[in-house]
């Protein structure tokens, strides 16, 4: 697999550091990546706005994935926080952030997950919150475990948290994954490695932050997310 990943990495990086949809080392792309080039279109007025979420959609407890049961989930409690920014560096305020992840043993609460690792009765693994005035999100959760998958022999995903983001325009929609620093599985993982540009890879990795760590309680990670694509509002003249 490392040879296939190394070979695919010689292709020129995609704009913005995004993966090429037809990335051969991730086998499932073979029948799901379009064969026609994308049609370049100017975003419509619909696509220049975004779905609206508010206090009714998200309860404060939705941001604490350790509080969704009667008992404490097993594993290493962590705080994950950061800011959601647009391509001009402006905060994306009051927009929806959603996460989902495996438990500490690397098992998802999903019928399709056949990994023979234990389910945790006290961990579901889904959370949501709205960004604040500064574009900041914050989740309390458990550090997810690595898990095997069937892409190739002895394939393991590095520990990751799935993230879903909305911007001020539909064009900015992003689903991605956050990784943890120093994982030995990065170079062996076709999904992480589908981002071939090394600098872009670094943008997928959270930073351990001792100021975010809560004494006697949880380790802290910082991860800022930058949305691609044209935003809804024209750039602030002061920033141009």
């Amino acid at each position, binding site marked *: 697999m490392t040879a296939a990943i190394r070979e695919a990495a010689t292709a020129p990086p995609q704009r*913005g*550091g*995004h993966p*090429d*949809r037809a990335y051969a080392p*991730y086998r499932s*792309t*073979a*029948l*799901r990546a*379009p*064969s*026609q080039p994308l*049609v*370049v279109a*100017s975003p*419509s*007025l*619909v*696509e220049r706005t*975004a*779905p*609206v979420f*508010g206090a*009714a*959609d*998200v309860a404060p407890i939705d941001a604490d994935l350790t509080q969704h049961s009667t008992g404490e989930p097993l594993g290493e409690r962590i705080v994950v926080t950061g800011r959601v*920014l647009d*391509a*001009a*560096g402006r905060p994306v305020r009051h927009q929806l952030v*959603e996460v*989902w992840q495996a438990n500490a043993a690397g098992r*998802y609460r*999903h019928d399709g*997950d056949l990994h023979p690792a234990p389910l945790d009765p006290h961990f*579901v*693994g889904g959370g949501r919150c709205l960004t604040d005035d500064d574009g900041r999100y914050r989740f309390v959760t458990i550090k997810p475990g690595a898990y095997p998958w069937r892409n190739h022999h002895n394939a393991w995903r590095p520990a990751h948290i*799935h993230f*879903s983001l909305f911007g001020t325009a*539909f*064009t900015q*929609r*992003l*689903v*991605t*994954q956050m990784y943890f620093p120093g994982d030995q599985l990065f170079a062996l993982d076709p*999904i992480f490695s*589908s*981002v071939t540009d090394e600098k*872009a*890879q670094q*943008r*997928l990795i959270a930073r351990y932050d001792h100021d975010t760590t809560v004494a006697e309680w949880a380790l802290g990670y910082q991860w800022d*997310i*930058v949305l*691609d*694509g*044209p935003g809804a509002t024209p*750039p602030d003249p002061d920033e141009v």
Partner: protein
Amino acid sequence: MTGPPEPTPSQTVGPFFAFGLPFDGGGDVVPPGTAGAISLHGTVRDGNGAPVPDALLEFWQAGPDGRLPTRGGSMARDGRTFTGFARVPTDRAGDYTVRTLRPAPVAGSTEAPHLAVTVFARGLLFHLFTRVYFPNHTEANAADPLLSSLPPERAATLIAVPDGWFGGPGYRFDIRMQGAGETVFLDLTGDGAQRSSTIDGAGPA
């Protein structure tokens, strides 16, 4: 001085989004029995024509008044406010269904009425954008900047096909991810003075 930040790369939604993203009634933009409700339904297929049972679709649209919703509640939904947002996973047969209202033209828009669509799936490293148009807006569709720029057989992949539905009028909109009859997918990033001029240094004037 530091430049604008670089984007966070996309990663696949994977196979296990079921407890993270879908929500109860995610396809019910309007409640059952709403006057004028339509169903929009179809099948997502891969390059072999096989159904894709682990895709997730999102739809965003103006209401029948031509306005884009500006109030929160797109998940909680109070049953009265039109939120214009739907999110549905495909089922084991690759099928999805949304119940909504037909959009009206947005004031000041040159585009024919349409729904904006995002496609996520296992095996798809970066989501795809497409649009659903309706066949009855013949004149508006003919003048639409996107539809009119496409060969007819490709434009046809963006136009919903009327068909019946147990609850009233319905439209079929199938999505073919790859191969024969491949749906037109859009690159919507080309707009930006904002990005291309700052990142590449040579964007449109």
